[in-house]
């Protein structure tokens, strides 16, 4: 009975992974009259001497390093704000969650407009600040990545709010009652009761946000195409551009392989750092 699922997983996950390992060492092209030939480390040599690759690696890390703590923290704040039995809590949960349900493609499009030089954001700023010189957010190498970061957090933070919330609700009420007797309120209550109880949730959130952040692609594809001046090119975006537009499957597989190793290392390190200490 497990047969169909296992067969499909092998066919569409295990085989592609192994193919990535094989194709990365060939000059395979998606559509080519000639069969692929073995080229050794040629793709990797090219990759490591490609300044775009290093830029995309830097951008990917930049994005992840900023997004992971801010998104996780903001999601926790939201969760604490809506984790109460007061009227309207459900309404706020729903509203904060709405961007999650909206597709990233639509969100990226919408924010592309908000970020335009004559777009909503500049208009709103200059309405309150008349001497403000409008910024072309996505076309300025200094502001393009921060703009994408803000939008990405806005879209996904509701998802992690719900996960924090489910963690918060598994904390036994007796813990808070006991803390209350000891005078643990406000910050202390959070520091000594809530935070330690969220260990498993914390690990899960950290790892899911990190993997999602390292996989940054859609926003880039819809909003900036890696520009301006490669200030927003990411590893996945570069891989897709190489493999899909230039049909260079072998080279793209090499990029994918490097990315895969990257994800493995980062999530391995995180698992090690957040392991449960007995």
């Amino acid at each position, binding site marked *: 009975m*497990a047969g169909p699922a296992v067969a499909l997983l092998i066919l569409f996950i295990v085989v592609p992974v192994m*193919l990535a390992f094989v194709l990365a060492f060939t000059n395979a092209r998606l559509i080519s009259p000639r069969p692929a030939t073995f080229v050794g480390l040629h793709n990797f040599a090219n990759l490591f001497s490609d300044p775009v690759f290093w830029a995309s690696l830097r951008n990917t890390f930049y994005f992840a390093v900023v997004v992971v703590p801010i998104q996780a923290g903001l999601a926790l704040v939201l969760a604490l704000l809506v984790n109460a039995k007061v009227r309207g809590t459900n309404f706020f949960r729903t509203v904060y969650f709405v961007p999650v*349900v*909206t597709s990233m493609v639509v969100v990226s499009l919408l924010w592309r407009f908000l970020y335009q030089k004559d777009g909503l954001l500049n208009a*709103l700023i200059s309405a309150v600040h008349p001497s403000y010189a409008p910024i072309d957010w996505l076309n300025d190498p200094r502001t393009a990545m921060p703009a994408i970061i803000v939008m990405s957090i806005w879209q996904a933070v509701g998802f992690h709010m719900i996960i924090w919330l489910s963690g918060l609700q598994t904390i036994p009420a007796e813990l808070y009652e006991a803390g209350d007797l000891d005078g643990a309120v406000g910050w202390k209550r959070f520091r000594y009761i809530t935070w330690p109880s969220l260990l*498993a949730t914390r690990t899960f959130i950290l790892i899911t946000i990190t993997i999602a952040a390292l*996989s940054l692609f859609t926003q880039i594809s819809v909003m900036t195409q890696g520009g301006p001046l490669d200030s927003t090119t990411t590893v996945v975006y570069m891989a897709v551009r190489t493999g899909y537009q230039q049909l260079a499957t072998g080279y793209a597989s090499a990029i994918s392989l490097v990315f895969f190793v990257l994800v493995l290392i980062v*999530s391995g390190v995180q698992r090690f750092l957040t392991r449960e200490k007995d």
Partner: protein
Amino acid sequence: MSTVVENPPRAGRSAHRRRAGWLVQTGRILLALLFAGPLLFLFVSSLKPDLQIFADLRSWRAFVPLGHVSFANYSAVFARVPFARFLMNSIGISVLTVVLGLLVNSLAAFALARLQWRGKQLVLTGIIATLILPFETLALPLVWWVNKLPWLTMNGFHLQLTTGWLDTYQVQIIPFVANAFSVYLFYQYFTSIPKELDEAARMDGAGWFRIYRNVVMPLSGPAIATVAILTFLPAWNSYLWPLMVVQSEELRPVMIGIQYFFQLNVSWGQVMAYASMITLPVLALFLAFQKAFIGSIASSGVKG
């Protein structure tokens, strides 16, 4: 499980507490505006001509449907793209992925959770190991790979074996049917159902498939809802994959249609109309099944 404790109010601190409550409530409202604002702007702008969208930007009018409001942008969308076709494609692809996914993944989870067989632990570990692979790492070799796969097609009344899945419906469905996370969620849920039920059913002469269909699945409503939602959303929203594997217009899903609105001079009103049209169905589903949606995300986070 979901008991939320509020501190009992104490004498002397209640004024302070009330002010804190006020602050929190203000914070909630401001955040709600921040989250709802851009989407409200999207829907409102979809009803306005381009000139008015820009004219309204500097004031609160950007967020209210006032002035030259009409569905003109929407009819323009229909004139520009075969929207009905895209919509049917997306619905068909999403629904099939969900239905097949529910069947295949629950069967696998049933075998793993309720049956005894050799190598079971190994298979379970293998399935869970695939969880850490982001789809993006597989996408490119996968494109190359599906282009080599065989498929049976109907040529008149003759079945014909063809190779290459690029530019088909199945390439948008079948690779996403089996999903390690869905298997895992079902597995978790199935292990919580008492085994005595299986034994009782077996006494009555039921085979494994009957136990799956008549005992375990009817008790698994929440797990089914979770997997259905978590399969539906990415299927509906998928962008990277169809971008790479679908060329023909008649096979395209709605998200790819967006590209039609970025040729030459962009009409933002039309872009907003198209974006609204592909967002509203999912938003309506979300509001109707809001509890299950949020519950499903929450349960997906409960994994140690």
